[in-house]
């Protein structure tokens, strides 16, 4: 580890079970504030499952059970006294497939601030929507069509709309679950540029299948395999001098 950054997510001995099946095996990891961390690994290695433990989206799966502690910004998020609503307002998420609500672009972005009561009047809400759309690099394309349906946008624009929707509630962490896997290379590059901008304000954790993408955008990379965290460190180190032979095999394309 070459640089020391204050960490915002601290996971200790986290294991996740789906019924009897163990999907995540005793993972401990600290993730730094205002940086991009990439989770890589072959399909089914548990990286998405692990990502979803950080905002408790796994709660929606009945058979899912979690052991260990996940501390976000100093609070144990699996403590019985914690409500998921403030947690998810703090830890936003962008999904693999763009999933804008079938409402207008404006309503898509305004939804989060509205349910949390972040704006006291219409003009404040307008400002939040504008700021979020600007933050997601969508303002210029969407400013004249705020009343149009969010689903009328192209795939890349829809994904940026989902990012705008997420940052409209001003979270501290944004989880991205393969955000570019359904997008073409140009849209992907737009999103990647956007991520680098966002990392100035937000902590971003991204799950990706593309090692080039991990290498391009992230400062730190974690390699998962069969529910285990094999290696975690600076992206440069991992891609240039992987310490573990499994990581090296994956990165060089021998397994995956």
């Amino acid at each position, binding site marked *: 580890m070459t640089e020391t950054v204050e960490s915002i997510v601290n996971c200790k001995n986290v294991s996740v079970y789906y019924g009897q099946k163990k999907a995540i095996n005793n993972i401990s990891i600290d993730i730094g504030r205002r940086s991009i961390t990439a989770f890589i690994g072959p399909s089914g290695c548990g990286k998405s499952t692990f990502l979803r433990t950080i*905002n408790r*989206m796994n709660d*929606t799966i*009945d058979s899912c059970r979690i052991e260990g502690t996940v501390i976000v910004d100093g609070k144990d998020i699996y403590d019985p006294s914690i409500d*998921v*609503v*403030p*947690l*998810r*307002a703090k830890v*936003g*998420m*962008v*999904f693999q*497939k763009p*999933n*804008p*609500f*079938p409402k207008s672009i404006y309503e898509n972005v305004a*939804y*989060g601030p509205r*349910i*949390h009561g972040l704006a006291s009047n219409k003009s404040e809400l307008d400002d939040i929507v504008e700021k979020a759309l600007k933050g997601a690099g969508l303002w210029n394309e969407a400013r004249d069509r705020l009343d149009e349906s969010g*689903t009328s946008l192209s795939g890349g624009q829809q994904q940026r709309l*989902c990012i705008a*929707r*997420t940052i*409209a*509630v001003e979270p501290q962490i944004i989880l991205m679950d393969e955000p570019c896997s359904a997008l073409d290379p140009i849209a992907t590059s737009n999103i990647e540029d956007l991520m680098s901008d966002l990392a100035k304000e937000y902590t971003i954790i991204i799950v990706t299948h593309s090692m080039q993408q991990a290498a391009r955008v992230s400062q730190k990379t974690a390699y998962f395999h069969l529910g285990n965290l094999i290696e975690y460190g600076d992206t440069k180190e991992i891609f240039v001098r992987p310490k573990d032979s499994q990581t090296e095999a994956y990165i060089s394309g021998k397994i995956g």
Partner: protein
Amino acid sequence: MAQTRTEKIVIDGLKARQTKERNFKFFGIFAVALAIAFLAILLISICSKGLPGFFQYYATFEVELTRERIDPRGDMSDQSLFEGEAKKIINEAVLEFTGAKKRNEKKAARSLLSNGSDLRLVNFVQKNTDKVNSRQKIKFALDDDADSFFRGYIKKQTPEKQRRLNDIEINYLEKMNEAGIITYEISDYLFFGSASRNAEMAGIKGAFIGSMLTLAVCFLIAFPLGVATAVYLEEFAPKNKFTELIEININNLAAVPSVVFGILGLAIFINLFGMPRSIPLIGGLVLALMTLPTIIISSRAAIKAVPPSIRDGALAIGASKMQATMHHVVPLAIPGMLTGTIIGMAQALGETAPLLMIGMVAFIVDIPGSITDPGTVLPVQIFMWADFAERMFVHKTSAAIIILLLFLMIMNGGAVWLRRKLERRW
């Protein structure tokens, strides 16, 4: 060109495959054609019997509306008009026209107009108070036997003893026809009359309003309850043995014969709670019980069809489960829920058996004014009319069936329209 082994085998077997496909297609077309033929026969038979049911024969007579005779108390109240001599005035007009002198002639002349003619005269006076003390031409419905004569069901050639009209009566009817006072018009009794033992006066208004009231009660109870149940079971209920049992039971309830719900209603609402019989409130409650499974099942299907990504999207920005459900899932599922509800309501509209059990088959002349007034519903009215022997009831039965079918078509059309309007893509 050399044939490969695979090619040869495939080509050899091709004929059998094509025959199979052709046969299957033929059976499909045959089945559809059969269905269409039966539908056509049904429609033709109902329409040919039912369309004449929308019309009936009227005779116009000029009557002297003397104030003292019609309204002896002079206050135009129902009681006063009831005590008046409306019947006598009409009979005088008929006797004058026919020139009946002898006792049997007078009897014959008096029997030609509907029993409800005096009521018609009273209604006319109530609506046109300014026309009192003048001679007015008023249209009276013919008695159903006289009506049948003009429809050709009673023929003059038949020996007098074998027909329901005697020679004198037929003579008078022919005389009226020659004088041009007989008209064949859209039946106002059908639309504005209610249950009556006199075929010419029977109408569907009471049953129609009864149906509307019953359906309103049914909808107000079944829709919110059904949707709430579906939302709870689909979104909030834990998945365990108990909810599984509830689920199986709801599915089974959809297959329970409707008459059983009638017995349930009779046992619980009437016997246990002591509510009155024959009222639309109970009818609606019973039909709500019957419709609930349909609504719950279709609502659950509609909720299941909402992509989970929408729910996840809402949850991920911090919506509570309730907010994600109410703001996103339910609005997207509403078209499907409404379709299921309207199909359930259409089913309820056509239901007879359970309503017979709770006494909505009673002969009720009054038009129900509220859900606690005794009444009946359209299908039960049709059921009762189908039981009567008079020729005219056959036509009125078919006419009422046409009205019921139209009503159903409007409801189904409404369902399609609502679906189109509310459906959103995602």
